[in-house]
């Protein structure tokens, strides 16, 4: 099961391109943006790896955007850019065959907690604003993106925190393989809010980051125009909470076997934060290691999507890397593991 990456839409603290993303990850220092004026509420830090200058109205217009939460708006913008970059214009002939698969952690924690707070602080617990109710469901971003671009194909939201993008990628490959759709926007999105900032701070996962990265994934088919940026060859996942378990290494081996890629040929590994030890017996020591987190903070469900962006940045600038396979890997605190094999 494979898919072709034919377009991208990437927004992060590092900028709006995979080139800037790669540059920031190479430097490896937190891309700090001044967030002090962003919210009325106090924040744990004055600077954070959040997206600067994101103007919803400028990017999406006034109509229908005033009640969007930030995560949803970011996802909508990233989806639009991935469609445009991939040269896919939804119309009445294709919109039933194009869909959206996004990763998430808790949806918009801010939207949900703000809504929930109203039930506690208002005179009556039901004095919530019903217009904001849809923002509390975790499929809000994918549903709104589908509405904006008129995409009626498979539409799914996959929870997985740090692994969400890899799960979404696997879900998308299945839908492509089964022939349910011809193209899918696949990505991950996390907003920076007081809620996520404090959550990361209080659980020791900080600093919280912010990003939306979405890719247009197409079914390999004759007549597909344009040069794909990369091919997703395989995704493997598993749940291995026991410390003794084969864990991530076994997952990587399965992904490579499915992709028919020899471990010795792996040229790079991209991840949130890499524990290279666990993969030292699988992947050559010479393979480049690229970690998103030191530069962009804890971007949760956008982490894997940023890792793919880093690889795409590499493939774009380095002709020698073209045609060589790379890995995106991740592990969650609960013991879930996932690995994707891509080739530029």
């Amino acid at each position, binding site marked *: 099961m494979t898919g072709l990456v034919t377009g991208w839409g990437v927004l992060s603290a590092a900028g709006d391109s995979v080139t800037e993303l790669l540059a920031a990850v190479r430097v490896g220092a937190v891309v700090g943006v001044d967030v002090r004026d962003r919210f009325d509420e106090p924040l744990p830090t004055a600077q954070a790896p959040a997206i600067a200058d994101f103007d919803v109205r400028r990017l999406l217009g006034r109509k229908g955007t005033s009640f969007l939460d930030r995560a949803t708006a970011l996802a909508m913008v990233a989806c639009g850019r991935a469609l445009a970059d991939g040269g896919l214009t939804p119309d009445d002939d294709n919109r039933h065959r194009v869909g959206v698969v996004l990763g998430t952690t808790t949806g918009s924690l801010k939207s949900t907690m703000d809504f929930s707070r109203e039930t506690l602080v208002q005179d009556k*617990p*039901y004095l919530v604003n019903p217009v904001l109710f849809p923002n509390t469901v975790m499929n809000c971003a994918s549903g709104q993106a589908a509405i904006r671009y008129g995409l009626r194909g*498979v539409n799914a939201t996959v929870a997985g*925190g740090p692994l969400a993008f890899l799960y979404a990628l696997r*879900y998308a490959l299945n839908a492509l393989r089964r022939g349910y759709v011809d193209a899918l926007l696949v990505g991950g999105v996390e907003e920076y809010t007081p809620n996520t900032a*404090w*959550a990361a701070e209080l659980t020791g996962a900080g600093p919280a980051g912010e990003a939306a990265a979405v890719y247009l994934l197409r079914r390999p088919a004759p007549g597909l125009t344009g040069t794909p940026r990369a091919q997703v060859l395989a995704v493997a996942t598993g749940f291995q909470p026991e410390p003794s378990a084969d864990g991530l290494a076994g997952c990587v081996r399965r992904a490579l076997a499915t992709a028919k890629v020899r471990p010795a040929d792996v040229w790079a590994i991209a991840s949130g934060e890499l524990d290279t030890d666990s993969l030292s017996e699988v992947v050559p020591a010479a393979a480049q290691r690229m970690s998103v987190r030191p530069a962009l903070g804890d971007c949760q469900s956008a982490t894997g999507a940023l890792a793919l962006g880093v690889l795409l940045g590499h493939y774009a600038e380095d002709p020698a890397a073209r045609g060589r396979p790379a890995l995106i890997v991740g592990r969650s605190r*609960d013991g879930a593991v996932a690995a994707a094999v891509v080739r530029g």
Partner: protein
Amino acid sequence: MHRVVVTGLGPVSGIGIGVHEFTDGLRSGRSAAAPITSFDASGFPHHWAGEVPAFRPEALLRRLRVADWGRSALFAAAAARLAALDAGLSLPTTDPGRVGAVIGTTSGESTVVEQLTAELVAGGYPAMSAEALRQAPAERLSYAVSAELGLAGESVTLTTACSASNYAIGYAYDLLCWGEADVMVAGGADSVCRWAHAGFYRLGALTERACRPFDRDRSGILTGEGGAALVLETLEHAQERGARIYAEVLGYGVNCDAHHMVAPNEDSVAACMRLAQENAGVKPEDIDYISTHGTGTPANDLCEARAIRAVFGDRVPPVSSIKSMLGHTMGAASGFGAIATTLGIRHGFLPPTINWANPDPELSWIDPVPNTARPATVRVAQNNGFAFGGNNAITIFGAIR
């Protein structure tokens, strides 16, 4: 391509915990509706819901430490444990990597998020407890299932709101069909919470005490909760271990309205039915029963009934809504629908739509199996699930041949 069958059922619901109680609840038209106890609902004009007051996770779970998980994860894991027992699965299986879990949900760990909100209101953001923050991510629903049953295969939570269990069943079905797994536990879970209750009330979608789908005077949903799990496996795997087979998963379909976040869309719902039927290799005339989404709101039931007529023409099979008994269990809803459908096929009966009193002249083609379960031969049945975000998902089950 492997055939996929249902071999175990695990309902944790307000009308029964475990397959025997649940079957009895469906047959007798039991109602879960009662005054809310899981939060202080005294300030709400409508304060009934379909809770599961008899849920004692510690009595059902063997491996999970209850304190480590939120209520929805516990619903999911308890349902999965019951389904695994019902399936007679020996755990851990010989190849745990070939067994996985896919769980659907609307609001994930909603009661954990509400606890965080209460802490925030009381003491500001820094007062949020780290343990609750660790329990809040929605992916922990499927992880709870995998951890409880010792499964090492794919473990994914699909958060496609109120059709999420059908998404989960469909994805699990695909993985089994394609030979990527031997056994998958699929279903959904959600918990009753203040914010959803408030949201549905303010949308004007909440009824006072009785949910009466397809009735002329239907007035909305009751919020509900629970966990629904099905053990799905390849036919060969089930036959090799001599498992009892309830029914076969024939296929499913998903699509998106791309129209409105909240209002259902008749054409899109009809298109989803056609997708599911095509995927399952059945025609409308093959279908003997539809377990509807049937929320009991005027808008949903009208939209759904019209879509059914558009697809089935003048041969509309009997339909019912088990939400009349359970309330709207959100992400678990189509999982309970799948369990009810499977039981109907296995035992030859149609679950009723309770609280039904008056035919709706606008839905003249609908036979809602009013109030009393009905004996019937069910060879093929369709299980509808729709959701906020326009996420439609429909599963189709058949008697094993």
